[in-house]
């Protein structure tokens, strides 16, 4: 261990010995200043009445922000509704995206003509960013003769899409569209590490189709399954940006992440920057992510022991 920490370039002493530290400081310094520091300071701010306006003094308010956010009046009922909505969003996005991504991966992992085109097609939305993803779907879901509207009309259905009462579910559709390709890629990567002789052995034993998948692919896929499960849960709890582009801030549609942003930066319609309050809200969301993330992690570890033993 001693040899490992020896700086080989330090022979000359002085500057040469300090060089690694000196050159490391800018990167590390920025990371502490902009990343870790502010991250931890969120707790501190959640106990104050900070605003987003320069020059207004900041005072301690204890846990009043949390109390107001969770327990007081009509606003807290809205907040709890947003919390419930965040959970629904998580459950739907996680389960559907997981299923769709897995199905895609299974399909494009076969020896089929054009599979690379399909893979690329499904993956591309991942790199487009919310502005493009959102606007593209706003056009696609345009009421009054838009593409989806035409399909709905053809089927004898009717919807106002993003302007209607089901807007929340349409955002879920777009969210899954935008990210299922990522889930697919992780599954694919997992599938390609499964040794081919496992399949050969199972095929010799007469296993085909579903049996092959159930008894060979699925258990062998455990690491990818677990990764996707965790990423989807944590990711969907924190996702809210498509709401910004697709629906804007409206009561009855927003998830917790959007509440934080809107309260902090005056987007609630009242133009007040309640950053202390928003910090408390973001800690509530953070606690939710941590709690659910850790339970999911424990569940995943148990699965690993079951399959990988």
């Amino acid at each position, binding site marked *: 261990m001693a040899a490992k920490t020896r700086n080989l370039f330090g022979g000359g002493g002085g500057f040469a010995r300090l060089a690694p530290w000196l050159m490391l400081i800018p990167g590390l310094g920025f990371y502490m200043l902009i990343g870790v520091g502010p*991250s931890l300071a969120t707790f501190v701010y959640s106990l104050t009445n900070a605003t987003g306006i320069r020059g207004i003094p900041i005072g301690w308010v204890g846990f009043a922000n949390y109390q107001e956010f969770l327990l007081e009046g009509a606003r807290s009922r809205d907040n709890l509704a947003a919390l419930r909505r965040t959970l629904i969003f998580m459950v739907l996005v996680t389960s559907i995206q997981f299923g769709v991504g897995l199905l895609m991966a299974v399909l494009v992992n076969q020896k089929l003509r054009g599979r690379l085109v399909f893979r690329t097609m499904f993956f591309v939305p991942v790199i487009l*960013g919310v502005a493009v993803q959102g*606007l593209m779907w706003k056009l696609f879901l345009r009421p009054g003769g838009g593409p989806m509207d*035409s399909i709905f009309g053809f089927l004898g259905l009717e919807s106002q899409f993003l302007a209607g009462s089901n807007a929340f579910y349409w955002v879920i559709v777009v969210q899954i569209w935008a990210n299922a390709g990522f889930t697919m890629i992780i599954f694919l990567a997992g599938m390609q590490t499964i040794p081919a002789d496992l399949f*050969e052995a199972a095929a010799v034993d007469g296993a085909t189709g579903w049996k092959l998948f159930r008894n060979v692919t699925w258990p062998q896929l455990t*690491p990818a399954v677990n*990764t996707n499960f965790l990423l989807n849960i944590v990711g969907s709890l924190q996702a809210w940006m498509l709401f910004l582009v697709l629906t804007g801030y409206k009561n009855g549609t927003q998830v917790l992440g959007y509440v934080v942003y809107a309260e902090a*930066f005056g987007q609630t319609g009242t133009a007040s920057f309640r950053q202390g309050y928003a910090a408390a809200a973001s*800690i509530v969301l953070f606690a939710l992510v941590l709690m659910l993330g850790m339970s999911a992690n424990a569940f995943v570890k148990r699965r690993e022991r079951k399959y990988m033993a």
Partner: protein
Amino acid sequence: MSVLIDNQPEPDIVIERMVPPRDPRARRKRALRKGISYGILFLFAAFYVGPLLVLIFASFKSLPEFFRNPTGLPESFSLGNFTEAWQLANFPGYLMNSLIYTGVATTLFVIMSVFVAFPIARGYVRGAGALLTLYVVALFLPPALIPQFQLILNLGLYNTRQGYILLFLINPIGLIILVNYIKSIPRELDESAAIDGCGYVRFVWSILIPLIKPAIATVTVIHAIGIWNELILATVYLTNDELYPITRGLIVFEGVYGSDWPKLAAAVLMLMMPMLVLFMFLQRFIISGLTSGAVKG
């Protein structure tokens, strides 16, 4: 991990080899399975290509034509919407801003990060393990959004290019990718370079960096994509139209010309194009970057 392009032997090749090809029942079953697979794939494909096609079609229509026929093929392919959107939306300005933010922040980040990753990977600084942990736990910290805003505000960097760039000088996953890659470079190299009298900075700059090009490419690409696509921070930190990156510019454009979908569609396509071109050429790095951050845990 180049999932989109590689050609490893895959399960089905094996299975097909196992099944005696002359058995008509097995052959029929295989054909059926292939048919179903294609059926589902084309259904998904419609869902994926549909929105893009509609966008492309819309971008070529005149406004009256769009209202008559919002979905179908355009009557003619004129580029009028593109040139008009380009001028109306101050696109050159937005595009330039996006390029500046992405270029400057990514360059600074990557250079600084190599100098952080190298001594951590080698243990050349005391507490290297603890430092690495500091980057790993970043994924489990609360969001920095609000205190970050207070910091930038109090530094007087709100609504400035410098302030906005400052926000993008960190990326814990990128750093971890670099550390892992540097660990695969043999240490003997450092030793012989040091014996030959090569200085620390010169070693990192002219020997190490060329050797870790794949990792640098990966980190550069994922970091740059993140900045290019960023919308929220641009909304929070920039209020001056002249400073907007193209994502924010597009949303502003939507606010003003929201009902003029042909122009908006042209604008969206122009924002998308650089990303798609980049993806065509760099998909290997993009995919390895995006997944290596995820698969580690």
